[in-house]
C-alpha cells in the first residue's frame, strides 16, 4: 500500500506536546519540552497545542504528516488508555499506519503527580518524550490480520441447552451440526417427571424444541455420534466425528459450542444404596412418579448433599434442594397423608422464585431437618421398613424416622465423554471437573480459546432457565463471529526468528491460549509456529524462549532497550 513506502524510509518523527489547558501547561514548561523534542534524533517537526485531542489539534497532526512527510507521530499528553485510539485514527486518516503512532503520558503520570515541582516535572516530561521518541524511531507498521470465519457451528450435546443454542443459531441463519452421543436427544431432562418451579411436564418443553430441531433446514442432527478430533482454530475448525461404530464424518465449522451436560453422581454404597431395598436416588423417584408407581408410602425421607460438599466434590450442586422440594410436593399432592421429611445442610432456595417454592413445601407440611456434615444420617433396616436416625442440628437431638423409602439427592458431575471432549478440544476443566470458562464473572460462556464456547450444566450445575439463558448466551457469542464472517486478530503478536529457534517447546508450555506450538519444518528441524489468529500478545513466550528467538510486535526487545537507554542515559538521547 502507498503509506508502507513512506514508513520504510528513515524515521521522520513529528512530536505534538499538549497543554491540556492548564493541566499540563500549568506545571510543565511545554515550550521548553517542544524545543527539546526538536533536538532529538529523528524528530523533524514539533509543536505545542492547547488541546491536541480537539478537532483543531487532530487536523494539525494530519496536516503535519502530509506537509513534513512524517512517518512516525508522537503525542505527549494524557494516557494512551483513553486517547490512543483517537490519535491512531487521525494518523490512519492521513495515510499513516496506526502502529507508527506512540504516546507520551505527561499528564496522569507527570504534571498531575508533580504539580508542586514544576522543574522536576518538566525534566521528567522531557525524559518521557525522549523515551517515547526512542521507541518511535523503531516502530514498524502492523496489520491486524483478518481471519475468515465459516458460517457453520458444531454443537456438542443435544439436551435442552444444545438444542436451544442450535435452534437460535439456525434462526439466525447459520448452518448447525448438532452432535449427540446418545441415540436419542433430550439429555437428562428426558428422564425427569416434572420441572420446577412450574411443575410442567418435560415433554411440554422438549417436544416443541425437538420439533424445531428436526424441522429446521439449517440443523443437521447427528445422534449416536462422538467428536474424535478437532484441528485448526477460530473460524476454521476441522472436526472429525464418529457416527455409530464405523462411519467417520469430517465437518468444517467456524465455531464450536460445548453443551454436553452432566450426569448424576452414583451413590454406590452410601446410605445402603443398592444394599437396602427402598433406598433410591431422586432420578429413580422421578421415574416412579412418572410411571405412577409411588403407591401410598407412610413416610418418605430425602437426604440432601449425598456426594457433594465433601472431600473430592466440595461444590454445591445448586439444583438438588429445589428438585427434592419439587418431588416432596408431588408426593404430598398424590398422597397427602404420607409424611415427607427432607434432611438438608442448607436449603438453596435462592433468587426470585424458589423461596416461595420452599415456603409452599413447609405449608404442605414437608418436614425439614438440618444435619451436620460430621453427623450424617444413618439408614438401617427395621423389620420390613427402613429406619433413618439423624441428629437435628437445631435441637441437638437425635431423631429417628421410620421410612418406606429413602431418596438420595446426588450432585451433577462431569461424565467421561465430557472429559474426553476437553482433551480433544484442548480446553480446561476446573477442579470441580466441569468445563472452565475464560472468566468467572465476565466471560461465563467463553473459553480462553477463541471460537469455542460452553453453556449449560457442562459448565457447572444449573437448572433449566439458567441453562437456557446460557444457551442463548453461547448462541450470541458464536453468532457474532459467524455473522461478521471474520475476526480481526491482534496485531501485537509473537514473532519467531526461525534461524534462532531450536524448537525446544518452552513457548508452547507457557502459552495459555494454545497460540504457539512447535512444528516439524522438515529436515529434522523443529520450529515454533505462532497461530497469529489466536495469539493475545502477552509476551510470556518471548521471555520463556531460551534463545531469544521470539519477540513481540510493537513491544520488541529492541524498542524496550531503546527506551531503557533513553530513560537512563540522557547523553546518548
Amino acid at each position: 500500500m502507498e503509506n508502507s513506502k513512506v514508513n520504510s524510509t528513515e524515521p521522520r518523527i513529528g512530536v505534538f506536546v499538549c497543554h491540556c489547558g492548564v493541566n499540563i501547561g500549568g506545571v510543565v514548561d511545554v515550550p521548553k519540552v517542544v524545543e527539546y523534542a526538536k533536538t532529538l534524533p529523528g524528530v523533524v517537526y514539533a509543536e505545542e497545542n492547547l488541546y491536541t485531542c480537539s478537532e483543531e489539534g487532530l487536523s494539525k497532526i494530519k496536516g503535519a504528516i502530509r506537509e513534513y512527510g512524517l512517518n512516525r507521530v508522537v503525542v505527549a499528553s494524557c494516557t494512551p488508555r483513553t486517547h490512543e485510539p483517537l490519535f491512531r485514527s487521525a494518523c490512519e486518516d492521513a495515510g499513516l499506519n496506526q502502529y507508527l503512532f506512540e504516546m507520551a503520558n505527561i499528564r496522569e503520570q507527570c504534571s498531575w503527580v508533580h504539580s508542586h515541582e514544576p522543574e522536576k516535572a518538566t525534566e521528567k516530561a522531557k525524559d518521557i518524550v525522549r523515551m517515547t521518541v526512542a521507541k518511535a524511531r523503531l516502530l514498524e507498521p502492523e496489520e491486524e490480520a483478518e481471519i475468515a470465519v465459516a458460517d457453520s457451528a458444531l454443537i456438542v450435546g443435544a439436551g435442552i441447552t444444545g438444542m436451544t443454542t442450535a435452534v437460535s443459531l439456525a434462526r439466525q441463519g447459520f448452518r448447525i451440526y448438532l452432535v449427540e452421543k446418545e441415540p436419542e436427544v433430550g439429555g437428562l431432562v428426558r428422564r425427569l417427571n416434572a420441572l420446577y418451579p412450574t411443575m410442567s411436564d418435560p415433554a411440554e418443553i422438549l417436544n416443541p424444541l425437538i420439533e424445531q430441531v428436526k424441522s429446521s433446514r439449517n440443523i443437521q442432527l447427528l445422534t449416536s455420534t462422538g467428536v474424535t478430533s478437532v484441528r485448526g482454530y477460530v473460524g476454521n475448525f476441522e472436526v472429525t466425528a464418529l457416527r455409530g461404530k464405523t462411519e467417520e464424518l469430517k465437518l468444517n465449522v467456524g465455531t464450536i459450542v460445548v453443551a454436553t451436560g452432566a450426569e448424576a453422581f452414583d451413590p454406590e454404597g452410601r446410605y445402603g444404596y443398592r444394599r437396602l431395598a427402598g433406598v433410591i436416588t431422586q432420578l429413580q423417584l422421578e421415574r416412579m412418579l412418572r410411571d405412577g408407581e409411588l403407591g401410598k408410602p407412610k413416610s418418605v425421607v430425602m437426604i440432601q448433599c449425598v456426594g457433594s460438599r465433601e472431600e473430592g466434590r466440595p461444590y454445591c450442586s445448586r439444583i438438588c434442594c429445589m428438585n427434592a422440594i419439587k418431588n416432596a410436593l408431588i408426593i404430598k399432592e398424590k398422597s397427602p397423608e404420607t409424611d415427607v421429611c427432607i434432611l438438608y445442610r442448607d436449603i438453596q432456595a435462592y433468587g426470585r422464585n424458589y423461596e416461595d417454592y420452599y415456603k409452599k413445601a413447609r405449608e404442605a407440611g414437608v418436614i425439614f431437618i438440618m444435619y451436620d456434615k460430621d453427623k450424617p444420617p444413618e439408614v438401617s433396616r427395621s423389620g420390613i421398613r427402613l429406619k433413618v436416625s439423624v441428629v437435628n442440628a437445631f435441637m441437638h437431638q437425635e431423631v429417628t424416622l421410620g421410612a418406606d423409602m429413602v431418596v438420595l439427592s446426588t450432585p451433577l458431575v462431569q461424565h467421561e465423554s465430557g472429559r474426553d471432549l476437553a482433551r480433544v478440544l484442548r480446553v480446561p476443566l476446573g477442579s470441580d471437573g466441569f468445563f472452565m470458562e475464560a472468566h468467572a464473572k465476565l466471560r461465563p460462556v467463553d473459553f480462553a480459546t477463541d471460537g469455542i464456547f460452553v453453556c449449560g450444566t457442562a459448565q457447572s450445575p444449573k437448572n433449566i432457565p439458567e441453562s437456557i439463558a446460557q444457551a442463548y448466551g453461547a448462541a450470541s457469542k458464536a453468532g457474532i463471529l459467524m455473522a461478521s464472517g471474520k475476526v480481526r486478530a491482534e496485531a501485537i503478536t509473537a514473532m519467531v526468528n526461525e534461524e534462532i529457534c531450536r524448537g525446544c517447546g518452552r513457548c508452547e508450555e507457557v502459552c495459555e491460549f494454545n497460540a504457539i506450538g512447535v512444528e516439524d519444518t522438515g529436515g529434522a528441524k523443529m520450529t515454533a509456529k505462532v497461530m497469529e489468529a489466536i495469539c493475545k500478545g502477552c509476551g510470556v513466550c518471548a521471555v520463556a524462549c531460551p534463545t531469544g528467538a521470539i519477540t513481540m510486535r510493537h513491544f520488541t526487545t529492541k524498542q524496550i532497550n531503546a527506551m531503557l537507554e533513553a530513560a537512563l542515559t540522557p547523553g546518548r538521547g
Partner: protein
Amino acid sequence: METRMEDAMAKTNVRYCLKCGKCTGSCPLARVNPEYSPRQTVERAILGRKDQILRGKGVWWCLTCELCSERCPQEVRYPDFIRACRIEATAKGIEHMCAHGGMLAELQRAMTSPEVKQDRLGWIPKGAKVSGTGDLLYFVGCLPYFDVIMEKIKPDSVAIGQSVVKILNRVGVTPAIMPNERCCGHDLLWTGEVESFKKLAKLNMDEIAKTGAKTVLMSCPEGYRTLKLDYADLFGELPFEVVHTSEFFSRLIDEGRMKFDKSIDRKVVYHDPCRLGRHLRVFDAPRKVLSSISGVQLKEMERSRAEAMCCGVDAWMCNSNSKQMQIERLREARMSGADLLVTACPKCQIHFRCVMSEKLPKSVFPVPDEAKIDVMDLSELAAKAMGL
C-alpha cells in the same frame, strides 16, 4: 380464637418458620432464661412434639409481649400460638404455674357466677359525678382488688381510676360506671381458662348493654385488648367503641377541651405497655398527652414504641426472670435521663413499684440504685397537670 395447637399452627404461620432464631434473639425472657427459646418451641411443634410443648414450662414462661412476632420475618404469631397451647394444656388438665398462688385466678373464677353482687365503688372520690348509664362507660378494671391484694407495696391503683373520673368531670363528662363490673377475663384467657373467660365476657357484655354506652373507656391496656380484640372475636362487631384513656385524652386535647394549667417540671420517660403498644399500635397518643403538659421534658428509652421491652410479667405469672427484666427496664428508663417513669398500664406500674420495693441481700440479687425511679400512670399525671 384457636383452642388447639394444631389449629393454631395453621392460623399463626408457625409452619413458615425459617428457624432463623430472630425471635429468640429478640426475646427479653430468653436473655435471662437460657432454657427458653421460642424458635425451639416452634421447631418442636413442626416436628409434632405436642406433648413436650403442652407439658413443658416454656409455654407458661412466654410473656406474650409480641416482640418476637413484631420482628419475625415470616409473620409467625407466636403469642397467639402460645395462647392456644395454654388453652389446650388447660383443657387436658395439665398443671401449670399459677399467678400469685392462684389467688387472682380464684377471684376471677368467682366472678363468673351470675349471682355475684360486688361492692366495688368505694374508691369513687367524694363529689365526683358518675352514673349508672350514659354514652360513655368507664370500664374500671380490677383496680380496687389490686390495692387489697398487693397492699404490701401500696400500689394505690385506684388513684388511676380517681384521676380518670376527675378528668372526665372536669371536661363535662359524667361517666357511667358499672357497680357489678367483672374482670374482663384477660388473665384467665391467657392462662388457658377459656371457658371461664367466655362466661366473664358474656356477663360484662350484658352489663355494658344495660348502661347503653356508645363508648367504653379503658385505663387498663390488658382490658382494652381483651374487649377490643377478644370480645369482638367472641361476639362479632361490638355495639360500642372501645378507647384507651390515652387516646381519649389526646382527642380531648385536639378538641381543646382538655387544658393543663399546672406546669410539671420533670424529665419524663414513657414506657409502652405491650398490649397498648405492639398489640394495638397505640404509640403516639400517650406521648402527645405528655408533650402537651407544660414543663414536661419528654425523654425516650433506647427501646421504645414497637421496640419497647416488656415489664416482665403477663397475666400475673411472675417469677425470678421477671425481676431481672424489670430491673433492666428501669435501668434503661434512668439511662434516658428521666426522673419520672410514666406508663399507661396499672399492671406495669405495679410490677415496677414491686421490684423497687423489694429488699434483698445484695449478694443474692442486687437491686441497683440507678434502677430506682418514680413511677406514675398517665391519667394521674394528666390530672395533676389539670390541678385535680
